[in-house]
């Protein structure tokens, strides 16, 4: 078995050594990291100021080869549980012709790794597997090694082969030299060569194969170090005390209320931030529970009933994604017009493990272990929180519980940082379940109006999509810690909401939000840039102020918009008595997306006919099938899904029986990792569609545990999931982590319609909503 990734960087070593003893005792740690002699040694402490990221344009920022030939790759794209670290290791091993086990991948530590912004948005595969960054660095290194070998062996590059870290003359293999002998321990001092030739996928031996994740044995046997397991010498335990209501502010804190508790409890108050620190975690939990804090009443929340429709009455910031200028006229002159309104609620990331971070803040520098999605950005905003210079803050990524976007990882890092600074010792903070769930940056709610104009032949001639979405906060980025709750409590402001209406004309083509349905042409600058045929098109987004925190949740905006588009397309097809697959294809121009629809229909043995099923039963259990598809962000992954469902019409309960999902992400880097993403995404999408919704009363969020926020458990009757992987080695690598989740809700809603004739336009599809809808049937 391969050593766990980042082994030399684990907290184990640190925990075993006192700070002062570290330098002396750390010799063993630097094995395999000889190029960083003297740097790695100091990592238990703040290693000295680092102001700027290693240059993305320099080879040495990405690849280092030690004297023993072992290869270290540095990436700014981290492992969030989706297997991308395995795929990145495959990539480097492939380009350098070494076994997978020879590559040690280090990711997301501001002391070493390049700034690749966020690990999010299905961007790791396109960012590092195409002709830039990590993949291009590996190719550049390979060509450099061949040039050096050519000189050393006195043979032209074309006469050489590389295997297992050795370059040899093809005709006389006794003439050979190892990578270690060529560059071991030295820097390349080369710029990334955009012309360095990447290996042709037809030659791949490691990339493109289902290499098993090397971290699984440690994970499965309870040895893996999550951020929750980071332990550093002299570490104390913190707990935050969040306000009891939205907008509540600290009036007074009675420190005497916890004075007699065990654990040498310290109370930390900074503006509206309140926390405690104690020797042990349970002591901190007890102290936080017993600390007497007087809070103001808070700002109150709008009623949840009717929340969706009142979004239309709010001040708006408007943006056109598309406006062909003729939509109103087309709607007026059309043979017929159809319209429908959909609503997607706020939903949670709902990580199984509540968020956790460890901070060691001293006067001369700070070290933070956390599971942020952007270590370099976090370095900047933590510096703001601490009143330090960013170069004096080091942020080290450690894996957390699956985050699916902006969970509590950033906010808890600020919590730990503030508490550590206040007590002058390292502090670990793990949020309570309630603190995680009540103050998350939820996935945005969306109210969506869809309208189409149809010609006499039933073809769509105009498509109008108008949405209202409330927004508060975001990823902190480099701008403001106030985009998450801790920053706000500390006195930082979230990004300002500035109303703007009417919207300026559309700018450059950008369908990253999938606001444009797949069926419109996306004509901007005289060029059709989207995936469909409908030329009269308008997409208008009204952002409004949100009473609750919001931020990216797996497939942000894309999932909500696609739920509306793909449900509505199905409604149109049904009204016209057209087969939903045929009707989709009629309005799709993009060959890759068309292929997805056709491949999926074929694999699912799609029975071409209109929905709802003419043979459907009016009572008892009814079955149906639905289809949905997406060109994720227009060009960052293609997928389609057929989903088969059983609806118990007496209870309103849903059982998903079968899911067939096709995916095209360009060249497939690891088919097993891809399947895992498609399977997990599909079921997560089903869970979100069936039960998940943030709830609140007039003062506070009320979905604060797993009884009040309804996720599917592991103990469901798991549907059959069949993945159709379409490999396109000639295309660029795209994302694949968010395609199947994006289409699950629409495929499910369409299947329920097929089974029952009832259209659900509001998520989640709870048994109560389904029963109510069934009751309205004639």
């Amino acid at each position, binding site marked *: *078995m391969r050593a766990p990734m980042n082994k030399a960087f684990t907290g184990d070593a640190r*925990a075993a050594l006192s700070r002062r003893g570290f330098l002396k005792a750390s010799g063993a740690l630097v094995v395999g990291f000889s190029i960083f002699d003297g740097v790695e040694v100091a990592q238990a402490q703040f290693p000295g100021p680092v102001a700027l990221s290693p240059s993305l344009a320099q080879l040495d920022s990405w690849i280092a080869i030690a004297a023993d030939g072992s290869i270290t790759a540095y990436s700014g794209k981290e492992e*969030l*549980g*989706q*297997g991308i670290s395995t795929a990145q290791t495959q990539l480097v091993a492939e380009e350098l012709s070494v076994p997978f086990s020879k590559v040690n991948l280090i990711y997301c530590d501001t002391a070493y790794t390049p700034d690749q912004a966020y690990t999010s948005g299905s961007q790791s595969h396109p960012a590092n597997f195409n002709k830039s960054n990590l993949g291009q660095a590996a190719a550049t290194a390979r060509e450099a090694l061949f040039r050096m070998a050519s000189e050393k062996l006195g043979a032209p590059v074309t006469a050489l082969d590389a295997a297992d870290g050795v370059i040899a003359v093809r005709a006389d293999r006794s003439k050979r030299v190892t990578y270690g002998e060529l560059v071991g321990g030295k820097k390349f001092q080369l710029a990334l060569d955009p012309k360095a030739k990447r290996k042709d996928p037809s030659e791949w031996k490691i990339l493109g194969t289902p290499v*098993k*994740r090397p*971290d*699984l*044995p*440690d*994970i*499965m*046997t*309870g*040895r*893996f170090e*999550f951020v*929750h*397991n980071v*332990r550093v010498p002299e570490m104390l*335990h913190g707990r935050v005390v969040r306000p009891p209501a939205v907008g509540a502010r600290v009036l007074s804190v009675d420190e005497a209320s916890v004075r007699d508790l*065990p654990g040498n409890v310290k109370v930390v108050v900074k503006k509206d931030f309140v926390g405690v620190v104690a020797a*042990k*975690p*349970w*002591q901190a939990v007890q102290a936080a529970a017993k600390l007497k804090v007087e809070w103001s009443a808070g700002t109150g929340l709008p009623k949840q009933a009717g929340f969706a429709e009142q979004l239309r009455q709010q001040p708006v910031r408007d943006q056109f994604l598309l406006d062909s200028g003729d939509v109103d006229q087309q709607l007026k002159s059309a043979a017929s017009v159809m319209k429908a309104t959909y609503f997607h609620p706020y939903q949670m990331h*709902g*990580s*199984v*493990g*509540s968020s956790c971070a460890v901070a060691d803040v001293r006067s001369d520098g700070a070290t933070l272990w956390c599971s942020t999605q952007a270590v370099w950005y976090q370095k900047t905003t933590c510096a703001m929180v601490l009143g330090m210079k960013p170069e004096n803050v080091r942020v080290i990524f450690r*894996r*957390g*519980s*699956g985050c*699916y976007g902006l969970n509590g990882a950033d906010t808890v890092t600020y919590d730990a940082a503030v508490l550590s600074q206040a007590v002058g010792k390292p502090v670990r903070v793990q949020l*309570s*379940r309630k603190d995680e769930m009540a103050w998350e940056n939820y996935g945005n709610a969306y109210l969506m109006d869809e309208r189409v104009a149809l010609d006499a032949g039933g073809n769509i001639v105009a498509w109008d999509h108008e949405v209202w979405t409330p927004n508060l906060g975001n990823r902190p980025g480099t701008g403001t810690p106030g985009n998450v709750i801790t920053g706000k409590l500390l006195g930082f402001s979230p990004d300002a909401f500035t109303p703007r209406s009417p919207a300026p004309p559309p700018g450059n083509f950008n369908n990253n939000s999938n606001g444009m349905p797949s069926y419109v042409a996306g004509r901007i600058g005289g060029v059709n840039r989207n995936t469909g045929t409908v030329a009269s098109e308008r997409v208008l987004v009204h952002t409004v102020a949100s009473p609750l925190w919001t931020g990216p949740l797996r497939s942000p905006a894309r999932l909500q918009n696609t739920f509306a588009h793909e449900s509505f397309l199905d409604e149109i097809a049904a009204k016209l008595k057209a087969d939903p697959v045929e009707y989709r294809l009629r309005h799709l121009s993009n060959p890759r997306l068309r292929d997805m629809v056709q491949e999926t229909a074929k694999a699912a043995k799609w029975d071409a006919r209109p929905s709802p099923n003419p043979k459907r039963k009016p009572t008892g259990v009814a079955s149906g099938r639905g289809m949905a598809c997406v060109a994720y962000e227009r060009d960052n992954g293609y997928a389609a899904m057929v989903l088969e469902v059983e609806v118990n019409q007496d209870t309103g309960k849903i059982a998903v029986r079968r899911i067939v999902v096709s995916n095209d992400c360009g060249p497939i880097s690891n088919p*097993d990792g891809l399947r*895992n993403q498609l*399977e*997990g995404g*599909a*079921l*997560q999408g089903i*869970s979100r569609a069936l039960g998940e919704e943030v709830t609140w009363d007039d003062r506070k969020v009320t979905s604060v*545990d*797993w*009884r009040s926020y309804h*996720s*599917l*458990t*592991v*103990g*469901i*009757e*798991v549907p059959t*999931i069949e993945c159709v992987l379409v490999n396109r080695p000639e295309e660029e690598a795209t994302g694949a982590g968010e395609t199947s989740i994006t289409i699950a809700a629409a495929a499910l809603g369409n299947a329920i319609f097929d089974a029952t004739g009832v259209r659900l336009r509001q998520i989640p599809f709870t048994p109560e909503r389904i029963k109510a809808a069934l009751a309205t049937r004639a």
Partner: protein
Amino acid sequence: MSTIHLKVNGESHTLDLDPATPLLYALSDDLALRGPKFGCGLGQCGACTVIVKGQAIRSCITPVSTVQNTEITTLEGIGTPERPHPIQQAFIDEGAAQCGFCMSGVMLTAKALVDKVPHPSEQLIEQSLAGVLCRCFTHARMMAAIRRYAAGVAK
């Protein structure tokens, strides 16, 4: 504070703890074990699961005083990376994880079931996991791994 005697993964420990301390804190903090994890502190998700007297229990809501001198088994107690327990091997073989935070709940619950009922029906497996969460939704692989393990045990 009181003297607490715990037997964890075959080793005896004497700790000075508030007897009301949930077992999870003793395991993950005092004993620095990584298998059981804090997920909710409410017994609702399973991330903290350990096996006591053949039962999969939630260590986050179990006071240490109630499990003294009883054998407690955590995820690391049943196998090692080099020699994983057959259920761990089955999960490795099926690639049945994404983030992997939930593994104690999924695997130890399934193991406790199969130890008691060597040929569990699908329905029984599902019932046993009805209180366990995996938010990456690696369910299909987990069920395949549990079936694979149960089939191996039945042989």
